[in-house]
């Protein structure tokens, strides 16, 4: 059943509670928390501007970091509100409490077109617990509810699911619509060959995704720490690399499954190994990996190697649709980021439909200055993978159906 859209709501003069995802990267600079990547904030602007232009009183709510149910000042959304002001050129009224008298009084004094931002939802233990009392207290602050936080739509929290039981109408924001359109429609029947690049850390987190992708993908290219577990399953020494030792049998099963499904499932044929994971550490490209020649004892895989880059580039060049989730190595350290950047460049040059499934791969694409060369960049890594797995996102399922 199709869900209500923000466009379907009469928002004029209404108090509209909108869940956004302002969980953005920041750093402390000059004694102040600064936003270092404002993608998620900018992506929410179409919905915020629409609400303002249509005379709503917009009340934004988001989580930020992991304060675990208590007030932690470094996770306050105050600096994010200040930053948002500079983007919309309108005061963003910050409520230093998430629920209760302070936000109620602020909202009572808001005029049409005004924007308020509530303090971090996760300062309240009821948020992640999806506590009905907390959800109700949030709902009391608005007349209508909009969810524009695709990045948290796979979590059943008070502000994504619980709240919908206490408001008369709940709808998708424009970012949510855009994400669903590209990920659902774009990957339901992808143009073939469909190549998937996975660079996540753990096999165990992605079993469902891998199995689901084997139903659709022609080729799956593996990188990141996850590759080590698969290499070990093939009897290749992995040195001191990060491995899920208890998942080696599972990795073997997945390799067999790929063979049975006739999916080309490629692992790194060489890697960049380093003595430790730090900038300036000794590093080198291994020779071709085999059970006899693996990663050196005490050394760790930190990136895919030159031969693997060439192999993956060939597969990418043949693709009509490419989905990428997760970097190929420890790309935060520039010396270990060559494989990840090479993959981003190959995708940009491919001519295929390219979808970046959130998380660190988005950062990598941006660092490479290639964001505008991709077809679609998702703001939600976890949510996009759950969608690919075929799961219904709780934050979407909870919204009002279209009549």
């Amino acid at each position: 059943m199709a869900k209500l859209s923000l466009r379907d709501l009469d928002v004029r003069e209404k108090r509209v509670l909108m869940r956004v995802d302002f969980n953005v990267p920041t750093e402390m600079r000059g004694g102040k928390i600064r936003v270092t990547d404002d993608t998620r904030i900018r992506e929410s602007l179409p919905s915020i501007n629409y609400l303002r232009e249509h005379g709503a009183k917009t009340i934004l709510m988001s989580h930020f970091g992991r304060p675990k149910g208590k007030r932690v000042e470094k996770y306050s959304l105050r600096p994010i509100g200040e930053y948002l002001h500079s983007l919309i050129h309108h005061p963003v009224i910050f409520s230093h409490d998430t629920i209760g008298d302070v936000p109620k009084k602020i909202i009572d004094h808001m005029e049409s077109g005004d924007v308020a931002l509530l303090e971090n939802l996760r300062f309240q233990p009821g948020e992640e617990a999806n506590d009905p009392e907390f959800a109700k207290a949030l709902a009391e602050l608005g007349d209508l509810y909009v969810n524009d936080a695709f990045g948290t739509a796979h979590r059943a929290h008070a502000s994504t699911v619980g709240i919908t039981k206490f408001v008369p109408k709940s709808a998708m924001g424009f970012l949510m619509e855009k994400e669903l359109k590209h990920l659902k429609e774009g990957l339901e029947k992808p143009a073939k060959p469909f190549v998937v690049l996975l660079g996540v850390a753990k096999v165990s987190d992605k079993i469902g995704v891998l199995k689901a992708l084997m139903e659709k993908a022609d080729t799956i290219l593996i990188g990141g720490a996850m590759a080590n577990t698969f290499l070990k399953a093939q009897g290749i020494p992995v040195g001191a690399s990060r491995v899920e030792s208890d998942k080696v049998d599972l990795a073997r099963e997945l390799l067999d499954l790929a063979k049975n499904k006739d999916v080309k499932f490629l692992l790194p044929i060489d890697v960049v190994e380093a003595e430790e994971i730090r900038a300036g550490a000794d590093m080198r490209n291994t020779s071709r990996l085999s059970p006899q020649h693996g990663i050196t004892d005490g050394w760790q895989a930190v990136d895919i190697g030159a031969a693997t880059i060439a192999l993956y580039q060939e597969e990418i060049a043949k693709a009509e649709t490419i989905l990428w989730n997760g970097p190929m190595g420890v790309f935060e350290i520039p010396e270990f980021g060559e494989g990840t950047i090479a993959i981003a460049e190959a995708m940009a040059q491919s001519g295929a439909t390219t979808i970046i499934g959130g998380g660190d791969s988005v950062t990598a694409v941006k660092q490479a200055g290639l964001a505008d060369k991709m077809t679609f960049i998702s703001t939600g890594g976890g949510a996009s993978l759950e969608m690919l797995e075929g799961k219904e996102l709780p934050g979407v399922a909870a919204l009002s159906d279209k009549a």
Partner: protein
Amino acid sequence: MGRIVTPVKIENLLDPSKKIEIDALVDTGAYMMTLPAVWRDRLGNLPSSRKIELHLANEETVEDEVCGPVYIQIPGFHRIASEVLFVEMKPANGEYEPLIGYITLEQSQAAVDMVGHRLAHVHHVDLK
């Protein structure tokens, strides 16, 4: 650099009848809009947001209260929704000297023009 003093209007967002219009010293070393604690009643019943520790020039550390929300308007710049810091001040020559700190300047997109001894509008946003 010299002193830059500018008018500023501060209004209790929850009770617009409570507002003050003053001249304040631009102080890029100060944290935010800073007012003498004795003025607190002039802004009505403004909720306390948090207490913060301040390190003073004389090496002393004191704890003061941040209250809000308020609208702050420096003429010629964006009106901002923000907070004010109330501190125990001693009047100099019988007058208190409120301060416009760097958070308030940044939010208002105002920068100090050291040559012209005035505030200048900053058009870009601050992103690394």
